[in-house]
């Protein structure tokens, strides 16, 4: 009978072992020639090229550039997204008229307008930031509206009984109550922003980490390309986990 600790870590061990096993099988299949090594590099070569990519390709600088673009888009979509959400919540008629449009905007492939943004803002970081901002805006607006609308009736009544002014009612009751939901929206917006920043960097061959993948692929540096892709995936996963932690902390604190 396995102990509780073993039962807890066993699935994680099985998951990790399966990945290692798959990589080992791929390594063997490439070495015996069943998989073409000019299409799929040896996993051991990919692991070795991590150090080279990090040192030679100035990955820290690229990482910071991508991070800065995400941060700028994040600040923009927080300011505008929350402001538009608050406005739509405060004016019910506008909300009824526009909420469906915002939801529709969320389902439109806005990133495909990147050639248009290239024309408007040039081949620069501004294009990437603006596109990430536009792509991440809808969830922030929708979640802000949702957060403000689901403020508990009892809290609103407490504010009324204290005869709070509309501004006080908003800052003391509505906004603090909606903050966790608003953060869920900002988190979604930031994830959309990161996806779009890296994607557009790759597509327009400009900027940080996405640009690096494109450059390595164009040089036909197979192991380097795979290593860079793994690095970007790792960065995305860490980013996703960090924002998830922050969201949990904020939700439990509220």
């Amino acid at each position, binding site marked *: 009978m396995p102990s509780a600790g073993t039962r807890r870590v*066993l*699935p*994680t061990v*099985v*998951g990790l072992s*399966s*990945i290692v096993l798959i990589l080992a099988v791929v390594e063997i299949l490439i070495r015996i020639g069943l998989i073409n090594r000019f*299409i*799929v590099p040896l996993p051991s070569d990919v692991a070795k090229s991590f150090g080279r990519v990090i040192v030679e390709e100035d990955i820290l600088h690229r990482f910071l550039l991508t991070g800065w673009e995400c941060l700028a888009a994040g600040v923009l979509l927080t300011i505008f997204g929350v402001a538009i959400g608050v406005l739509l919540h405060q004016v019910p*008629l*506008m909300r*009824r*008229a*526009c909420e469906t449009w915002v939801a*529709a905007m969320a*389902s*439109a*492939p*806005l*990133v*495909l*307008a*990147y*050639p*248009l943004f*290239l*024309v*408007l803002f040039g081949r620069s970081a501004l294009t990437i930031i603006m596109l990430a901002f536009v792509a991440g805006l809808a969830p922030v607006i929708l979640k802000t509206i949702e957060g403000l609308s689901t403020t508990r009736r009892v809290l609103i009544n407490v504010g009324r009984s204290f005869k709070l002014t509309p501004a006080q009612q908003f800052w003391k009751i509505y906004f603090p109550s909606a903050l966790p939901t608003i953060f869920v929206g900002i988190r979604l917006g930031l*994830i959309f922003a*990161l*996806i*779009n920043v*890296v*994607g557009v960097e*790759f*597509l327009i061959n400009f900027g940080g980490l*996405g640009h690096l*993948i*494109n450059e390595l*692929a164009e040089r036909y540096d*197979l192991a380097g*390309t*795979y290593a860079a*892709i793994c690095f*970007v*995936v790792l960065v*995305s*996963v860490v980013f*996703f*986990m960090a924002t998830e932690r922050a969201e949990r902390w904020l939700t439990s604190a509220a």
Partner: protein
Amino acid sequence: MADIGRLTRARRATPWMSPVTLVRVVIALSVLVVWQVMAVSGWFYGDVVPSLRIVTMALVKLLSGSDFYWNLWATIQEVAIGLGIGGVLGIVAGLVVGANKFLAKAFEPYLYYLGPTPKIIFFPIMIMWFGTGYGSKIAMGAVSCFFPIALNVAAGMRQIDQVLIRVGQSFRANPWQMALKIYLPAMRHPIINGLRLGLGVALIGTLLAETKISNRGIGFMVIDAYTKFDMPRMYAILIVLFVLAIGANTLVARLGGLDDIKQK
């Protein structure tokens, strides 16, 4: 008399245009007016913001030519095959992970955390594996839609009414029968929702791949208009594309009865 009174009130209650529609019309007209002002102001380089007349003409030209429909058909085929492959793999993965707690703990974190990564960065690998033609675009669509579908199906599996599962077990249904007769019918909504989300991301994955390397499809048309600096045509393609994407999303949600769930 009382009846007449009631009718009069009813007529008053339904004005010619509801306030919501009126606001929508005002917003739409304002956008068009601002656009036209920007077009004629000379603030932008020529053609960056073409006048409404020119965009309308480009839209008519686009929709009346066969070129657009040929490229649209190419994109539809790529997205449909990608969604088919990614959808089947996602449903199978979701069923397997959702049915077994141990497998869920072992593998679902990978699905969950890899789901929101930017999929377009895998495109160089797809080109190496499947070439620059249809194959790599279909693969991009499949990779993009696999994750949301698998996660939705896995989550849906855990929400199935246990009574239904016990009914299947009491009839001694084999795993295949359980999947076809119990799990899949009970999970219509999560699957449709997964497919709806999958359709959106498969569309984005395929179209972005087309803008990178392709000689067919709507993505190719957009980047072709950009390289030729044919801005009215680019606006026309983007407008039609956004309308089609939003329409497809709404249609899938409606066909799957997702609107009914929300209303409940």
